[in-house]
């Protein structure tokens, strides 16, 4: 057998073997490689390349080395799940870089981080001013996680003092002009309902690229034909506005009538409606 044929055979065989062995190590996200992962990956790759290029005279020795380099990491990963100590050694610990708004220079030194590195990592997390950062930590994967100061954090409904209604996941009921029966059933709807809604919007099913139903059954459509403007459903807002109008009407009637009985009935109704409007605001408007 010529040498080149042997190289091809070895390469193909090793390709398959490496593929299978790497599976043993298990699924770990490539984007979150720790230093240890990197070392094993390079070692496995190096051995595989050396064996397939005949750099190792004995095929068996090469395969043995490959086996050790895959089985050992696999074992260590298993151990790491069970024991915190092994985890700390293998995966490394996180390093606090900024604490209470102050950069910890000795920790930076420990992590071999230059000030430029730190600044560029902070910028990646949209923290352009060091003064905005309350806490930053270097994860074992080399990524920096940043906690901004409380007054620099993005506004959430809670910090803005707003109550918001719970919202369930919207269901995609039309994809590429075909009806997804399964998601319709999840919402407790059927094809009949969908056809009615499409008719209301005045859109044929074939023209719909994506159709989604929100938690209260409003249908949002995206069409193939982008020149057509589909009106966005406004049922929620309308219902809320009508309630507000009715509440104002009741107050008006209360002012208008001279009968004390009717006056008290109207003002009571106005009060109840005001409560309803208040309570439904998170559900209907936000």
């Amino acid at each position, binding site marked *: 057998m010529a040498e080149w044929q042997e190289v091809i055979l070895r390469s193909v065989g090793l390709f398959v073997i490496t593929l299978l062995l790497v599976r043993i190590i298990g699924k770990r996200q490539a984007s979150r490689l720790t230093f240890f992962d990197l070392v094993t990956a390079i070692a496995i790759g190096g051995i595989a390349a050396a064996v397939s290029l005949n750099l190792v005279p004995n095929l068996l020795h090469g395969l043995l080395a490959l086996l050790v380099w895959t089985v050992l990491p696999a074992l260590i990963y298993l151990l790491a799940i069970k024991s915190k100590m092994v985890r700390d050694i293998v995966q490394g610990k996180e390093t606090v870089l900024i604490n209470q708004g102050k950069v910890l220079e000795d920790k930076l030194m420990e992590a071999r981080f230059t000030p430029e590195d730190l600044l560029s990592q902070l910028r990646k997390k949209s923290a352009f001013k060091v003064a905005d950062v309350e806490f930053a930590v270097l994860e074992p994967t080399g990524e920096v996680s940043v906690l901004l100061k409380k007054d620099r954090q993005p506004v959430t409904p809670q910090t803005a003092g707003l109550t918001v209604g719970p919202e369930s996941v919207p269901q995609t009921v039309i994809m590429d002009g075909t009806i997804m029966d399964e998601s319709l059933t999840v919402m407790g709807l059927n094809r009949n309902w969908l056809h009615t809604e499409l008719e209301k919007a005045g859109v044929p099913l074939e023209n719909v690229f994506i159709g989604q139903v929100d938690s209260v059954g409003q249908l949002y459509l995206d069409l193939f034909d982008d020149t057509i403007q589909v009106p966005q459903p406004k049922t929620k807002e309308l219902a809320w506005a009508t309630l507000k109008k009715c509440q104002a009407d009741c107050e008006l009637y209360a002012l208008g*009538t001279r009968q004390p009985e009717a006056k008290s009935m109207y003002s009571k109704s106005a009060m109840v409606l005001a409560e309803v409007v208040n*309570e*439904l605001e998170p559900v209907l408007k936000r």
Partner: protein
Amino acid sequence: MTVSGQVKQTVASLKGTKATLESFAAIEQNDQAKQVLHQNIARLEGVIQDMEKRVAILEFEEPQYKGF
């Protein structure tokens, strides 16, 4: 428009909104939102009943405007 006509209109709006809320409550999957909706539908029902009683009195006072 007469007073009874105006009140009737408000009652009709309330009934329509109540129906809309009922359809929301039927489809809504989240229990908390469902509960809020049902609670407020019951309140609206109370208001509608009060107003309908008032409509009846108004119709009695102005029989010439009876009916819709």
